[in-house]
């Protein structure tokens, strides 16, 4: 694995002004995402994790410090990243295949070519036969798969994922983890994956960054040296997984307790 810094957060802070005064989402954050790695960011809810992704996407500017992509200031928007958000952002008036093909359509690819790519990806995420369905006709898990296919189909250089499986039940999440890792193994796209679930982070990532409660700061960054390919259904019972989990939980626990007090 190369370790060229792809995304760099340099001492950034982000403050929001609300009616009740200024809220600091995160501050003094220094973080580097290397090319080709799978980085997970874990932290309690509302600690400004999503803020980091929005900054990498160029949708939000830091109040202090700078965010750099390949050494340059992140453009607004950063079209080299694909973003899979927590909420569904499929276009409800488009069929599944037209949703998956949209980025290719924007690039001016003709319909047969882009639909061929879309069908390939739909096949890969297990949605063969649903090409002509509308998002509203699908279950939550299926819609997530379509979102995943859409994000992967146009092969962005980096993929940002903001709690993409947060709304799914535990079993379905494992299935999605399995699929995500298999797809990722084939492409090795740089991934930044935000979650509040430590187990999910360790299962998927090469490195895990633990965030504190608001204002979010990085508590620790740990390398997950579990071998790949990983069996997402069993890896939780690996003793080394347990050690990692214990250590990272130590950093997280305090924030979670604080978070409960604040929230």
């Amino acid at each position: 694995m190369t370790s060229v810094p792809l995304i760099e957060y340099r001492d950034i802070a982000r403050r929001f002004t609300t009616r009740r005064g200024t809220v600091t989402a995160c501050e003094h954050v220094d973080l580097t995402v290397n090319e080709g790695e799978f980085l997970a960011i874990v932290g309690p809810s509302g600690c400004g994790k999503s803020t980091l992704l929005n900054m990498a996407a160029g949708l939000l500017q830091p109040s202090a410090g700078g965010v750099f992509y390949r050494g340059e200031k992140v453009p607004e928007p950063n079209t080299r990243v694909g973003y899979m958000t927590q909420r569904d952002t499929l276009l409800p008036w488009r069929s599944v295949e037209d949703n998956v093909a949209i980025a290719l359509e924007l690039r001016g690819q003709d319909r047969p070519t882009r639909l061929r790519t879309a069908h390939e990806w739909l096949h890969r995420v297990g949605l063969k036969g649903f090409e002509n369905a509308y998002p509203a006709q699908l279950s939550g898990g299926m819609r997530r798969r379509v979102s995943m296919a859409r994000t992967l189909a146009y092969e962005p250089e980096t993929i940002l994922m903001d709690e993409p499986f947060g709304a799914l039940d535990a079993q379905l999440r494992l299935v999605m983890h399995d699929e995500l890792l298999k797809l990722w193994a084939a492409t090795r796209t740089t991934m930044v994956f935000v979650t509040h679930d430590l187990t999910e982070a360790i299962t998927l990532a090469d490195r895990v960054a633990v965030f504190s409660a608001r204002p979010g700061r990085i508590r620790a960054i740990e390398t997950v040296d579990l071998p790949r390919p990983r069996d997402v259904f069993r890896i939780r019972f690996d003793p080394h997984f347990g050690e990692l989990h214990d250590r990272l939980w130590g950093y997280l626990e305090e924030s979670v307790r604080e978070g409960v007090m604040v929230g």
Partner: protein
Amino acid sequence: MMPPAEAAEAPRVGHDIVASARAERFAILFWRLAIAVVGLALWETASGRLIKPFWISSPSAIWAQLYAWVETGDLWMHMQITLTETVAGFVLGAISGIGFGLALGLNKRLAAVLDPFIIAFYSLPKIALAPLFILWFGVGLASKIVLATFVVFFLVFYNTYAGTLAVEQELVDVLRLMGATRWQIVRKVILPSVLLWIFTGMKISVPYALIGAVVGEMMASNKGLGYLIQAAAGQYDTSGVFAALFVLMIIATGLHEMLKQSERAMLRWKEDST
């Protein structure tokens, strides 16, 4: 009512569900028909016995009046006039309303500047402009078309504009990250999501277009259903008033139904979301 023996039978899945759905539809149709028939019968009986026909006329007298109008060709002529005014006003109002709504929705600066004027005109009861339009455009079709256009314009404009404000920013952002140009975002996100609002605006404005046309006719004209109502009332001809109202009702329902069908065709993705 339903025979009790059937209720006691164990339900067979599938076939029985289809059958009971059909029975349900049939029952609804039956009750609707029953209400209409009983209502008309009560009206017919009450007329002349309980209440003077002068006040409420009677279904048979109204029917006779309609028939007479059909025979002379009057009905068709008046209907055509009112329909022309309504449809012309509706189309002109809808087109300009959609255009203006989108222009303001996509241009925040312009919207901010024009905001107080829009509110002022929006709050004005549009019907109050009828005398002015008659003064300006005469007693013919033009003044009614302008009135209907004006009424429809504001309803469609307001809905279209609100629709552009309600576009989900997340959908826009996802496309921006995919490298979409401004125009691509307008075409692929903003217009389709505003379409639903535009249809709502158009649907609610159909009866208002008719109101605009009819009110204009009642104030000053010598043709149209509004004129027919006014003229009949002037002669204390209750049957004539009711007959004209009945025709208006049919027209309004027909227009509404037409719009519903076209909406269903264009918003298919919403239809089968069950």
